[in-house]
């Protein structure tokens, strides 16, 4: 891809640096002169928003570790101490807890954006798979962070999720004991979750760097789903993308702050303000909202092992999407049938999320099963077949043509 300008160090210091560590030209070529397709819409600002949320979670998280005690007798108390005694502790904790929810909200929009515009297709397969890895790491991190609060929901979430591994034939029980460091979830479990919850965000940051690297090699996809052909199809990252990203980050922060300051416990569960009690399981245990669709898939299948396998497969299948989708056309804008199946898929995912919060009985189980079938059929049947049978609309000759035609 051709750039818009090349970096010329201005100051004497930057000239001196350039010959020793060319960080100035790296930043310039990645975030200033980097050519972005001129037709990007606001859905393309979520990468920036996600980077911001990762930074927010790491900063608030480091602050929380300064006041938190990872011990079964003290963890819950120390969290309450953060809420009541630590200066601005309530703010740090609410930012961190709601930040996790916002992080997942943004990542789901980011994933659906990728699915809609075919951002996983050649040459962006590795970029997409790195994204799936980040998503898996996020799920592990979010789960372990939730356990640290050591309330009733924390404890039983830890019990249920670690017990998923007991479904593995033969070695399942041994693996679960190994994960716990005991014969039940206990102090060793809390300690190792604390350690890993601290570590994994930095692992995520590492994979994010690879993700951005792969993005900058392949270049961004765009709403038209065709590659830029000339300088007329692109604009420099700064100021165009920087300002657009910045504007939407502020909009996103408004939503985030609305939750933090006006309804900080709306997304949580009251039961988690009861200290963990290994003797009593709460009557209704449900995971945080961002895991509900996968939880619904787990419960839709009346067999323990197959339920766990289906839940795992529902995430792993994403990694194979670049090869499951056989269509040459990237953007759903030019795929009339795919567009309909896509929106049905979005509705099914939201429906699974709703079902995940309902009791596992009667009509809810049947609906979960129907939705689970569609979830997998979308990837395993619809995607491969549409590439063969769908009659796509003609693609524009270039990005600039698609933009200028829309204007005319």
């Amino acid at each position, binding site marked *: 891809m051709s750039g818009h300008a090349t970096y010329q160090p201005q100051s004497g210091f930057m000239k001196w640096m350039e010959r020793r560590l060319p960080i100035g030209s790296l930043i310039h070529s990645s975030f200033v002169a980097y050519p972005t397709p001129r037709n990007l819409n606001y859905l393309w600002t979520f990468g920036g928003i996600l980077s911001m949320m990762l930074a927010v979670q790491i900063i608030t998280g480091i602050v929380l570790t300064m006041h938190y005690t990872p011990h079964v007798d003290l963890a819950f108390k120390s969290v309450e101490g953060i809420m009541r005694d630590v200066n601005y502790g309530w703010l740090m904790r609410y930012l961190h807890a709601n930040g996790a929810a916002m992080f997942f909200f943004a990542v789901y929009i980011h994933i659906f954006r990728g699915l809609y515009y075919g951002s996983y297709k050649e040459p962006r397969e590795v970029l997409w798979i790195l994204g799936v890895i980040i998503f898996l790491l996020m799920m592990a991190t979010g789960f372990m962070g939730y356990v640290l609060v050591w309330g009733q929901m924390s404890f*039983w979430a830890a*019990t*249920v999720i*670690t*017990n*998923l591994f*007991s479904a593995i034939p033969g070695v399942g029980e041994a693996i679960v*004991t*190994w*994960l*716990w*460091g*005991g*014969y*039940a979830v*206990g102090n*060793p479990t809390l300690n*190792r979750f604390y350690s890993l919850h601290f570590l994994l965000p930095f692992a995520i940051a590492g994979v994010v760097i690879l993700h951005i690297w792969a993005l900058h090699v392949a270049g961004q996809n765009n709403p038209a789903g065709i590659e830029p052909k000339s300088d007329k199809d692109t604009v420099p990252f700064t100021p165009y993308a920087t300002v657009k990203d910045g504007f939407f980050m502020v909009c996103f922060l408004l939503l985030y702050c609305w939750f933090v300051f006006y309804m900080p416990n709306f997304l949580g569960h009251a039961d988690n303000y009861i200290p963990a009690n*290994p*003797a*009593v*399981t*709460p*009557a*209704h*245990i449900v995971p945080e909202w961002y895991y509900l669709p996968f939880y619904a898939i787990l*419960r839709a*299948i*009346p*067999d*323990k*092992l197959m*339920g766990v396998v289906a839940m795992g497969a529902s995430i792993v299948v994403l990694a194979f999407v670049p090869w499951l989708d056989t269509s040459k056309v990237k953007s759903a804008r030019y795929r009339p049938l795919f567009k309909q199946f896509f929106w049905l898929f979005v509705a099914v995912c939201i429906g699974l999320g709703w079902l995940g919060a309902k*009791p*596992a*009985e009667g009509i809810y189980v049947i609906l979960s099963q129907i939705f689970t079938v569609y979830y997998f059929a979308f990837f395993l049947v619809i995607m491969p077949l549409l590439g063969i049978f769908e009659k796509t609309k003609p693609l524009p000759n270039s990005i600039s043509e698609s933009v200028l035609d829309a204007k005319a």
Partner: protein
Amino acid sequence: MTTGSSAEHTRRDFLYIATGAVAAVGGAAVMVPLISQMNPDASTIAAGAPIEIDLAPIADGQIIKVFWRSMPIFISHRTKAEIEAARNVNLATLKDPQPDSARVKEGHEQWLVVIGICTHLGCIPLAHQGEYNGWFCPCHGSAYDTSGRIRVGPAPTNLPLPPYTFVSDTRIRIG
């Protein structure tokens, strides 16, 4: 660097392979302590010593919960009706077929001792609930009968039995 044709094996080839093999074995050996440290430590294992329970205060039809190895153990003093219900079951209809006699000690049929952890995903089932009047797990809806056997729901197996013996007619030792 040229390796030439691999038809000829030299002393250098042997040294490469031998060095690589030692490095691989060494790397694998390092994994042993790194993985093993996560298993239950000595104090956790020691805390799993056997416990003795006095059954005399448990009334007819009562179920108590005690902890052994951080696991809840249900001790059910079954009524005549509950024992009858547990015996009069067509074993072919069970998901994990086991006669009631295999789940209690002979001569102590009124005492059922099971590990109170749902075999699905580890929640603690509620006593005297569910359509089989045994236990009901609120998490994913598994129901157990008065013998602790899985009857409906996603749990794959019956509630497991802990190792225990009768020290006297009214005392058991778990572990």
